[in-house]
């Protein structure tokens, strides 16, 4: 079966952008540890640098300070080694390609274009049988996201990075895709980092939820989620689940409150 995922160690990472002559610090002192095969959810207020953190781990951007290490490799080495799969809020499919060929794109890019079995397997895994020949414009938003997820998985990456992949979807579709994501993750054991706005989503799918402060972003709380797997929708109705959601929610509100205090502090 699949390789076990890579562990991710992020220590003291900072990233500052120059914006219209101004400097904006997106991340500062950001720490994160994801064990091999772990599933981490990053949650925080808008603009707290969640996506920046993910892009740094993906090797799409480089930190100004701090280190990111994955199994002895830098993000850039991971990227160059083609060991990463990404899916963003925008599915970013190629409109002129079909479902199958969009998924195959990732294989083409890593030089394994003939691995048709992997493509077929994933089409089935994300439930798109019968739509193999459809183009993105003929698919619903949820189906497009599934294609993007399938594309991110088809190369059997050691690290899966998801930036609000279900952000633009309705609640029902979203829940359905979360179930599938969990199923896929259980089957593959890929190290996964999910950036999300939704607390219930984070609590439902992740082993650990990291709560981030507003800009400059850093991790202010960690919640280990101990629910047994596979998690089912019944879990959503339990008091344990609600208590966990409440706890994360409280951390999130505290994190925002702290900064307001810091800002108003005259010293």
């Amino acid at each position, binding site marked *: 079966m699949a390789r076990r995922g890579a562990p991710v160690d992020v220590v003291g990472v900072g990233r500052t*952008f*120059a*914006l*219209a002559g101004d400097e*904006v610090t997106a991340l500062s002192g950001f720490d994160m540890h994801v064990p091999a095969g772990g599933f981490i959810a990053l949650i925080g207020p808008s603009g707290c640098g969640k996506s920046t953190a993910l*892009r740094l781990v*993906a*090797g*799409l*951007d*480089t930190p100004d300070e701090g280190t990111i290490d994955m199994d002895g490799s830098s993000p850039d080495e991971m*990227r*160059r*080694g*083609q060991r*990463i*799969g*990404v899916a*963003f809020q*925008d*599915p*970013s*499919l*190629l*409109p*002129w390609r079909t479902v199958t060929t969009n998924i195959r*794109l*990732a294989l*083409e*890019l*890593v030089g394994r274009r003939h691995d048709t079995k992997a493509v077929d397997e994933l089409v089935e895994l994300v439930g798109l049988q019968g739509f193999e020949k459809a*183009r*993105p*414009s*003929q698919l619903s938003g949820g189906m497009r996201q599934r294609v993007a997820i399938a*594309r991110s998985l088809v*190369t059997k990456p050691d690290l899966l*990075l998801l930036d609000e992949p279900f952000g633009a979807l309705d609640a029902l579709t979203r829940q359905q895709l979360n179930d599938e994501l969990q199923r896929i993750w259980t089957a593959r054991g890929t190290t996964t980092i999910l950036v999300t706005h939704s607390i219930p989503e984070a609590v439902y799918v992740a082993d650990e939820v990291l709560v981030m402060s507003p800009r400059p972003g850093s991790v202010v709380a960690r919640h280990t989620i101990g629910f047994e797997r596979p998690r089912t929708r019944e879990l959503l109705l339990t008091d344990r689940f609600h208590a966990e959601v409440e706890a994360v929610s409280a951390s999130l509100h505290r994190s925002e409150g702290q900064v307001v205090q810091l800002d108003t502090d005259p010293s």
Partner: protein
Amino acid sequence: MSATAETAATAPARPAGGSRLDRVPPRVLSSAVGIAVLLLWELLARTVYAGSYRLSPPTAVVVEFFEFRGLYLRNLWHSTKTAAWGFLWGNLAAMALAVASTLLPWLRRSIGAVVLTVFCLPFIAIAPILRLITGPGNATPIALSALAVVFTTYVAALLGFDLAPGSALDVVRSYGRGRLTAFRSVRVRASVPALFAGLQIAAPAAFLGAVVGEFTGAHRGLGILTVRALGALQTDRIWVIAVMATIVATGGYLAIGALGRYLCPWSPALDVGAVPVPHAEPGLLNRLAGLLAPIAVVFVFWYAFLWVFGIEPFFAKTPVDVWAELFSVSEAPETRSIIFGALGTTLWTTSLGYVVGLVGALASALVFILVPWLERALMPIAVALRSIPIIVTTPVIILFVGRGLLTTTAIVAVMSFFPTLVNCYTAMTRTPEGILDVLRSYDASSTANVRNAYLPTSVPALLASARIAVPTSLLGATVAEWLATGDGIGAVMVTAFTRNDFKILWVSVAVLTIVAVIGYWLVAAFELRTLERMASGISR
């Protein structure tokens, strides 16, 4: 541009090896390139091309201008005035037609067909025909200048009227008011940005029309001055004229662009070249009617033109006469072999030139995408050159390349190069960041990026440019042939013109126009099919 701030925040660290030149301001880079080109030009003209009549050194051009500045400024003023009148009348006509098309939708197809046909006319050859009506004065260049702007302004105004927000139109309708009120209160205002984009293109086009009108005979103006200088091999003079024409045409383009931005600061830059092609209505009968009605209207106009101006039968040829000339009179086979033989030559050299320009433009656009500092150095120059009516500079190219089949190819290549480059590059820069991120996350090679992202995203712009390029390339080719090469249908027309053989002239004009219209529609049909197949994801 607002994109700068955004890219600063989201742009990924470019792969290491980004050149230090990336930090030099674009103005400095472009100026440096401009000066380098001037120096190289001077050097070449003084050494390799010295005494060859092919290339004038920039210093000689300046000296020539000041020595005969009275002559030059007088003629420049004359041509500019002609172009200004043409600009005025042509744009008024275009806007009136666009208003009619919007208020009376059932007229739209027919008006569109007439306007397209006008755009496809070989202007250089209809000058002698127009002169029959207008006499030897300045009216023919003005008329040509007006005809040269009708199509683009019509398309732009129509696009503008159509861009009116549907919800605003519904508000007007909900108060029980009709189309006219909606037009007055919503559409007119909404059309301003698109209209200005069209008027901007019309400025150099009007100048082109005026100069082409003067090529075939006028008392004054840059066109006739060029033709005389070409006959006398006065290289410096031809260069001075080309430079002046370029400056005035580009100045008009920039001035109207600035006015448009001043009047509608909220509006993004609109690309009128990218107007979507109309969808065919369903049903075979509808389609047939949609095809035949415009053709019928064009023929009605043809007859009306002859009748209104009461042109004598010796000069005036009806569609029936043209048909007879080609297919039923005794010398028809000979006429056919002359016309179609020459047409073959023209189409062949034109297509070759177009493909050369296209391949060059695509390659340059890709180089610009992959090497940002080169783009910053050269793109401003390409954007400026795009607005130049290249046809006006035909004599310069004739001198440089020589008189032969290659001249036509060179002119068409230069004509297609700049618009295709600018349009395709702009489209490539709009490749969604998300797609590029996905490619980057797999460490995709430049080749993979080009194949999977940049090239496909530029296809709509490429096809839109190609559609417009069909008539303009044929115009460029016939002008070159008329003035210089002695080959192709342009040469057939100039021979007929000098012999007062109006039969051949009319037949050539008709055949060329039909070929251009068919070419335009073939590209449009291909464009529609491709866009449908590539899905809406990348079109605007």
